[in-house]
């Protein structure tokens, strides 16, 4: 790894690198237990129970939100990190569904998990890459020596207008990562690159309840251009090829997009299958790529290379090269696996979904 980092110093113009090696010392997933099948949505809106773009999506319960779910994921991450929350130097929550318009999520999460008051805390709202953006910031904080540990979370209860195409996929869930010293990590973060532009393919204006999207525009110039630009640049500057990786994870707004972008980049279905969760949980927005990563960390062997690339509309893509380390197999059993959360499944009907997600106007 040291070789790789020193190569970077000489060649890279754009890649982010840290002064000290950093890595993931703890990680935790959280997926709420309720599932709404696509056939149930089409039953209501088209009169026929035809399958949607994903089989079913995860739905947060009536007493859950980004804060409660972030706390669940953060506790799992702390368990695997084997550190006390007092050692955290930052608590950052990335989401586009923070429960409050005005009042931070990060401080509630920090206090709930037992972090001290001597921290940085902040909420990130940066489309579906809010979580990976927080991860990059955590790399910076730890990698510069400002702090030893930083917690970065990507979590959403994604919103979709009833009847809109997005309703089939917009789901709830996410993951938390504790970034710490590389030598103490379950997986090192070897290099990172972000490709960031103003690409307005998806937005929600202030005081609107549901987002709008640019239909086909969300494909080629948005999702595909940004993910391929980020992943290709990172691999090119590292002199790496798709077959250098055991696993690849891409932002997953549905099932087809990540499959297609993987093919475009030269990855095989085998490399992406373990991190492709959208068919069974939907699109967890800021949590989507990160949950793919927790699912892969749950099974990866020491030495396995992982490429993860997020995408956020109007935000861009963050790509990371991660390598699983020796400590991973032993410590990952300290918390529930991503698969365990997926298997913990209670199917609900559309009416229950409407009640859970507050879609009935009560006043």
């Amino acid at each position: 790894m040291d070789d790789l980092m020193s190569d970077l110093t000489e060649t890279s113009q754009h890649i982010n690198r840290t002064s000290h090696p950093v890595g993931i010392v703890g990680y935790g997933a959280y997926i709420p237990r309720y599932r709404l099948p696509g056939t149930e949505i089409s039953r209501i809106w088209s009169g026929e129970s035809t399958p949607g773009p994903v089989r079913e999506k995860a739905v947060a319960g009536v007493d859950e939100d980004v804060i409660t779910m972030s706390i669940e994921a953060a506790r799992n991450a702390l368990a695997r990190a084997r550190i006390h929350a007092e050692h955290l130097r930052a608590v950052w929550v990335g989401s586009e569904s923070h429960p409050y318009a005005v009042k931070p999520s990060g401080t509630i999460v920090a206090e709930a998990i037992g972090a001290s008051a001597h921290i940085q805390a902040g909420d990130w709202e940066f489309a579906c890459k809010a979580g990976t953006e927080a991860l990059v910031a955590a790399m910076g904080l730890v990698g510069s020596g400002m702090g030893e540990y930083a917690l970065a979370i990507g979590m959403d209860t994604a919103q979709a207008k009833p009847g809109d195409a997005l309703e089939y996929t917009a789901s709830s869930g996410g993951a938390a990562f504790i970034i710490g010293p590389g030598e103490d990590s379950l997986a090192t973060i070897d290099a990172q690159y972000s490709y960031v532009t103003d690409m307005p393919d998806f937005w929600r204006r202030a005081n609107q309840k549901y987002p709008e999207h640019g239909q086909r525009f969300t494909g080629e110039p948005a999702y595909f251009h940004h993910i391929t630009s980020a992943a290709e640049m990172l691999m090119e500057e590292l002199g790496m090829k798709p077959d250098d990786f055991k696993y690849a994870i891409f932002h997953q707004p549905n099932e087809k997009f990540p499959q297609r972008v993987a093919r475009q980049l030269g990855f095989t279905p085998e490399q992406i299958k373990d991190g492709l969760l959208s068919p069974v949980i939907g699109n967890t927005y800021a949590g989507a790529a990160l949950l793919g990563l927790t699912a892969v960390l749950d099974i990866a062997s020491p030495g396995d290379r992982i490429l993860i690339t997020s995408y956020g509309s109007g935000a861009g893509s963050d790509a990371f090269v991660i390598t699983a380390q020796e400590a991973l197999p032993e410590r990952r059993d300290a918390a529930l696996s991503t698969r365990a959360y997926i298997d913990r499944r209670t199917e609900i009907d559309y009416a229950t979904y409407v009640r859970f997600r507050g879609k009935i106007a009560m006043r």
Partner: protein
Amino acid sequence: MNTNHSDVVIAGIGQTPVGEHWGKSLRNLGVEAILGAYRDSGGIKPQIMYIGNMLAVSASRQANLGALLTEDVGWVGMEGVTVEAADASGGATLRAAYLAILSGDVDVALAVGVEKWTDVIGPEADSYLSQMLDADYEATEGLSPHSLAGLLFHRYLYEYDVEQSAFAGFPEVAHANGATNPKAMFQRALRPGTYEKTVDPSGELGLYDIAPYADGAAAVLLAREDVLPKDWPHPHVRIIGSSLVTDTLSIHDRPAPLVWDAVRLSVERACRNAGVMPGDVDFFEVHDATSLHAALSLEAAGFASQGQGWMLAKEAVIGLGGQIPVATFGGLKARGHPLGATGVYQAVEAALQLRGDAGANQVSGARLGLIQSLGGMGATAVTHVLSVT
């Protein structure tokens, strides 16, 4: 001086790819096509520019395209004006340029069609498109061009007792031809059976019956033959017949909604003008905005009897080697339908056929071509006859 109607030559052609041009503006597209035609002519500058466009005012919030495009192409001060006839704007623009030369007032006129509207989506796009219908009696009732064509299609299947699958040949031929047109929006042939999969038992227009929303620009430079240099490199493709006819705007005001009189009359008049019979032409660029349009146009133009246009929907009849090739570069269905630019694309494609420059899309021995541009449900019909010497 007097200009004979057969002295008008297509001196230059230009076209942009058709598609969803998210990275290009109305100006970018227009200038690209105009400069293409200018360069193709060997640098003949027009004295007047007619611009065919339907939706710039709604979709781009831009009027006054005459001033816009003459300036952007670097010809500030040139006479320039928009011609609008819904999705027949392209054909009407070609006719305006042709008439300008016949008038004797100018020697060289440019017809450019440009449309840039795919960044408008959903109901907004449908409502803009519906402006081609009668706003008081059709559009306000919720009718769109597609839904109205759907109703007529339903009627057609019922009236003439036809199975919808009989229409498969229209998109299949269009897509087969589009496959070898580098400017086409869809450059892929349909697999056998693909059309049938989208057929609704109740007889609705399906996915493959409707030409796609698209952006694009095409330009033709028309010149009186005697201004062309002696060594001008291309065969002389002439416009020898031209006609624009209107019908009632609303379908419900016509005695027989499945008989498109303006379409028939404009073919008859353009052919009489040219001194040819429709049966003499080597290809017909038909306005296949939907499969219904294709069938009704072929009937109105006299290639089939009433109620039998669908019988021509076969590769052997309308394919490049058939009796009456249509949509030779993919037509509206596969090349794409950039509304006010479509009629000019047809002229560019006809010129390529008659010059013998159509490559894989060449209709062998093409000497005489018929092109037709329709506005709305055949409410405006513009037809041109082109020949080569």
